[in-house]
């Protein structure tokens, strides 16, 4: 394994050096600012995030910042904050409280640098007619003057950060995996865009960048995470990461902050004092599509 890795790295570095040489032979001085071409060549030969060394990651983060500066003229900070020890994130959603305002969707899009006008939204709020749990009867596109509409109840769905994620199993190149704190992440620079993960996901939580995300410079959130909300390219998957750039620093996810009715509860499943643990222990909770066997970390409950 070690041999494989080092041989691979050797090969890659050799190729990078060779390409750079062919590209103009001017890569000898490290002081010169990197050109867009040099950066894209380096990104092409970049290794999978899971096997990169600290130095390589540092370089990669700088490259992401340079790319965004070049493409949007915005200075962003791209970090790779590691998981907090002894933390497993979980989410609970109070269906009695959700009124279908879609404020979570709005906040998610602007926090996570999702392309505007692409309908690329990592949360879907379903309007469900009273008296049924059949998702086929749901309305994704409700646009009433006022919510709650008297005929509906609302079911917001996003990534459930499963313990046995079908998407991770499906990915042919290990571009997606589950982190120690339970967040399922994607290495956007490694994803080949085959969309098999989105075929496998029972929650329709994975979305594809069909074209380059439409982002205006003033819409960019400059606080980014490599595995989270850094601006994506065309042709790669993306998903909800429980706002990894916020939550790994102790903040709450944008959807929880935006919810005007307090339907959303986020917390550490390993902390017995946390609110999410109170809910799991004191409320009648259920998980959507539990029969799919993916062990989701997202619970729904009602006020009793």
């Amino acid at each position, binding site marked *: 394994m070690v041999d494989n890795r080092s041989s691979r790295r050797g090969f890659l570095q050799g190729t990078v050096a060779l390409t750079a040489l062919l590209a103009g032979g001017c890569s000898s001085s490290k002081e010169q600012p990197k050109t867009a071409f040099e950066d894209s060549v380096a990104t092409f030969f970049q290794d999978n995030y899971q096997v990169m060394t600290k130095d390589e990651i540092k370089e990669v983060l700088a490259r992401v910042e340079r790319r965004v500066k070049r493409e949007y003229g915005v200075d962003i900070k791209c970090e790779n904050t590691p998981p907090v020890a002894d933390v497993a994130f979980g989410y609970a959603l109070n269906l009695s409280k959700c009124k279908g305002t879609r404020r979570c969707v709005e906040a998610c899009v602007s926090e996570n640098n999702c392309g505007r006008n692409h309908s690329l939204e990592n949360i879907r709020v379903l309007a469900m007619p009273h008296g049924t749990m059949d998702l*086929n009867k749901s309305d994704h596109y409700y646009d009433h003057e006022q919510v709650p509409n008297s005929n509906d109840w609302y079911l917001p769905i996003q990534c459930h950060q499963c313990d046995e994620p079908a998407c991770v199993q499906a990915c042919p*190149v290990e*571009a997606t995996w589950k982190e120690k704190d339970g967040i399922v992440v994607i290495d956007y620079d490694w994803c080949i865009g*085959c969309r098999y993960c989105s075929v496998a*996901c029972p929650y329709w939580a994975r979305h594809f960048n*069909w074209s380059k995300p439409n982002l205006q410079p003033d819409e960019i959130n400059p606080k980014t995470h490599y595995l989270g909300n850094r601006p994506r390219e065309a042709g790669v998957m993306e998903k909800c990461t429980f706002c990894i750039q916020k939550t790994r620093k102790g903040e709450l996810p944008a959807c929880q902050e935006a919810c005007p009715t307090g339907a959303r509860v986020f917390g550490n499943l390993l902390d017995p004092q946390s609110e999410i643990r109170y809910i799991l222990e004191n409320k009648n909770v259920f998980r959507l599509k539990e029969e799919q066997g993916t062990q989701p970390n997202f619970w729904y409950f009602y006020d009793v």
Partner: protein
Amino acid sequence: MSKEKNSTKNHNKVEFILASLIHCFKGGWLYWGWMLSLIAIVVYGAMAYGQQARYGLSVTGLSDQITWGLYIGNFTFFVGVAAAAVILVIPAYLLHRNQMRRVTILGESLAVAAVIVAMLFVTADLGQPLRFWHALPLLGKLNFPTSILAWDIVVLALYLLVNLIILWYLLYNKFCHKSPVVKRYFPVIVVAIILGLSIHTVTAFMLSGNPSRPFWHTAILAPRFIASAFAAGAALMIILFQILHITSKFRLSKGLIREIALIMVFAQFFSLFLLGAEIYTAFYHNTAHDVSAHLLFTSNIGHDNLTLSIYLAIAAGLSAFSILMVRRFRENVSLLNIASILIFFAVWSEKGLGLVIPGFVPTPLGEMAQYTPSTIEIKVAIAIWAVGAIIFTLLAKVAIAIEFGGLRLKRPVENTDTEI
């Protein structure tokens, strides 16, 4: 001594490759007309692909709701063709049918062309095709054996490799005035047959291994794939052999065509039987599990084109089967041709489109979406078909020239060692 021998061998190999390449440029106006029109189609499609490369897959009709369409549908279909091309020669060896053995080489050529087409369709479907190296062993990080797609990559690559080895062995030996030794290449053919079954089984598993897509989540999918692949592969071969019979030195015997037709009858019977079993399960009860099938067959959400094509496919499959069942009809060349064409298109629309797309409707969140391939998508798909036709034409041209024509090494070879 051995050095000299090696250099002669290498020289022979170079001459084999050169002679084959030169032969590709020899042909009448029909050949050149055919090739040039295919090349024109490929160039036209490549321009369409250029658009896709520039603007992303947004130029296709695909969406997050229906994320695979024409490309993956064709991929599934061609994996079947590739598998059938080789599996069809099983009877040649099991039943000692020598007629079938003679067409092994054409089956291999078809398999190679079909696998390459299948691979091109997957590549066309990728959002980041340049990152294909992430799936290469050692260099990339192939998620094997967990991901079924990784399995598919592995078995398809192996299948291509094994078929190329067989083609090389058979043609190169013939070229060097030696007759191929069955004992030597038979084990490789067995490997190819196993891999042929594997590629189509794995492709079926790729779809059926998704509990979140109940339309595909059925154990019957893999057998159904194999059965329909046999039928479509046999149909394609019947047509191709007749064309080659007219246009080349390849000679088709009546016995051979009857044998393939017989295989087609059995395959088509199983294919229809399995489809019937599916339809029964889907319609006897009205469960949420079968919504996709209901939508497909009843066209409740404006899936009209798909519904029409699935009914046409079933009608075509049934009428072809009724033709083939009667021996007198089966042995009539024109009726057999009609049946073959019917089966080919029935399988293409039933498996290629009628299986992949309905699996996405409703989405796991119950959304009823629709899909119509965009012009760019159709152009790219046609171009990939053309690439397949070019590859098969070239391979078959060389293979027939060596096998049935007189394309041989100029100098006689002294040593009779068949080793390569």
